[in-house]
């Protein structure tokens, strides 16, 4: 069939018109956006931070780790290559490489350091994620969207602290009997996870599970932007260090040795 130049132009015109109408249709579609109500109980901050006063840590205490594992249905795969961890213990020279030396105080040398995601102000993990499954919230928390993660593990390569774990197997069978917290999802095989500073608890007005569980006052959680906050007070009174600050990630977890 031969098309005349005239009918070809007519059809092109109709197509262009169709494209012009699309924004109008989109506007109609958006009119159906759902309504949400603000939550008055939620804890809010400009920039959340955690201070760990390691001098108060009790020997062999793992209360914070246990509380976190319970709150977030973290599977127990043992200390294996496939281990999943949000908070774990690290030795001084592993937690603070580059500042250790052979004559460091005995106490510090043998002290286990609780380490976790630093919720960096300049997070390399966020920059490399191809699908924005991990991103920095306005309050500074580096958050994970398990729904969106495609398991490429770029973030694990980018994080200089080993804060992220990959689920090599379905974690459900490895959650100890009777420990399942029905209020928090488990993960599936092929998803990366890490500490979330307990965003689900902050939304309800609760402190993070680790902070709540520690009876020795090791952990202080609060807003760095508020000069009267507890964290600012502690940081102002005691000398503190961060993990690998030379990398420019600007960690938001501070240690008092």
């Amino acid at each position, binding site marked *: 069939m031969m098309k005349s130049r005239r009918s070809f132009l007519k059809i092109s015109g109709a197509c262009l018109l169709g494209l012009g109408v699309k924004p109008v249709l989109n506007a109609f579609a958006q009119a159906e956006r*759902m309504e949400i109500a603000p939550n008055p109980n939620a804890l809010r901050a400009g920039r959340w931070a955690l201070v760990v006063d390691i001098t108060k840590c009790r020997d062999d205490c793992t209360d914070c780790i246990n509380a976190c594992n319970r709150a977030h249905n973290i599977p127990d795969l043992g200390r294996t290559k496939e281990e999943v961890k949000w908070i774990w213990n690290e030795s001084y020279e592993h937690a603070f490489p580059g500042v250790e030396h052979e004559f460091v105080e005995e106490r510090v040398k043998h002290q286990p350091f609780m380490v976790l995601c630093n919720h960096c102000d300049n997070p390399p993990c966020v920059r490399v994620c191809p699908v924005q499954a991990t991103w920095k919230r306005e309050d500074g928390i580096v958050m994970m969207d398990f729904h969106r993660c495609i398991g490429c593990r770029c973030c694990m390569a980018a994080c200089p602290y080993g804060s992220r774990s990959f689920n090599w197997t379905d974690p459900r069978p490895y959650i100890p009997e009777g420990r*399942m917290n*029905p*209020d928090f*999802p*488990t993960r*599936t095989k092929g998803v990366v996870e890490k500490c979330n500073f307990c*965003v689900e608890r902050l939304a309800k007005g609760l402190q993070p599970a680790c902070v709540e569980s520690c009876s020795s006052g090791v952990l202080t959680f609060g807003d760095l932007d508020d000069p009267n906050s507890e964290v600012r007070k502690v940081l102002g009174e005691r000398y503190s260090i961060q993990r690998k600050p030379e990398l420019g990630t600007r960690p938001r977890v501070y240690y008092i040795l």
Partner: protein
Amino acid sequence: MYDGGKIIAGLVIFLGVVTFPFWYTQANEEAIEKPQLLLPADETECVEPTAYMRASHMQMLNEWRDFVVREGQATYLSSTGKMYEMSLTRTCMKCHTSRQEFCNKCHAYSGVSTPYCWDCHVEPKESA
């Protein structure tokens, strides 16, 4: 027109075959039973009207997910002016306690594969 009769006869047979599923179910009323869903005993009203929930619960769940996970918002204001926590396990499944008797049955009836929500979200224990 050549072979007009044959073409028309062919068309009639074709239409008959294509529409077979429709008139067959009409003729056999009981052919497919409506699913008997387990409805909540002590609640008469869902977060939105039933018709809306039936047609759009999947979009709603997706939006709830985005609000909670990505925007840190947890409270839904329904069209009836009530507030609900946006939570599959704590709001939806507080009433619809059985995934098998509610979600799965209707999904099987509609020929929609069961979603993978529960690969991660913990469903309430079925009291056998």
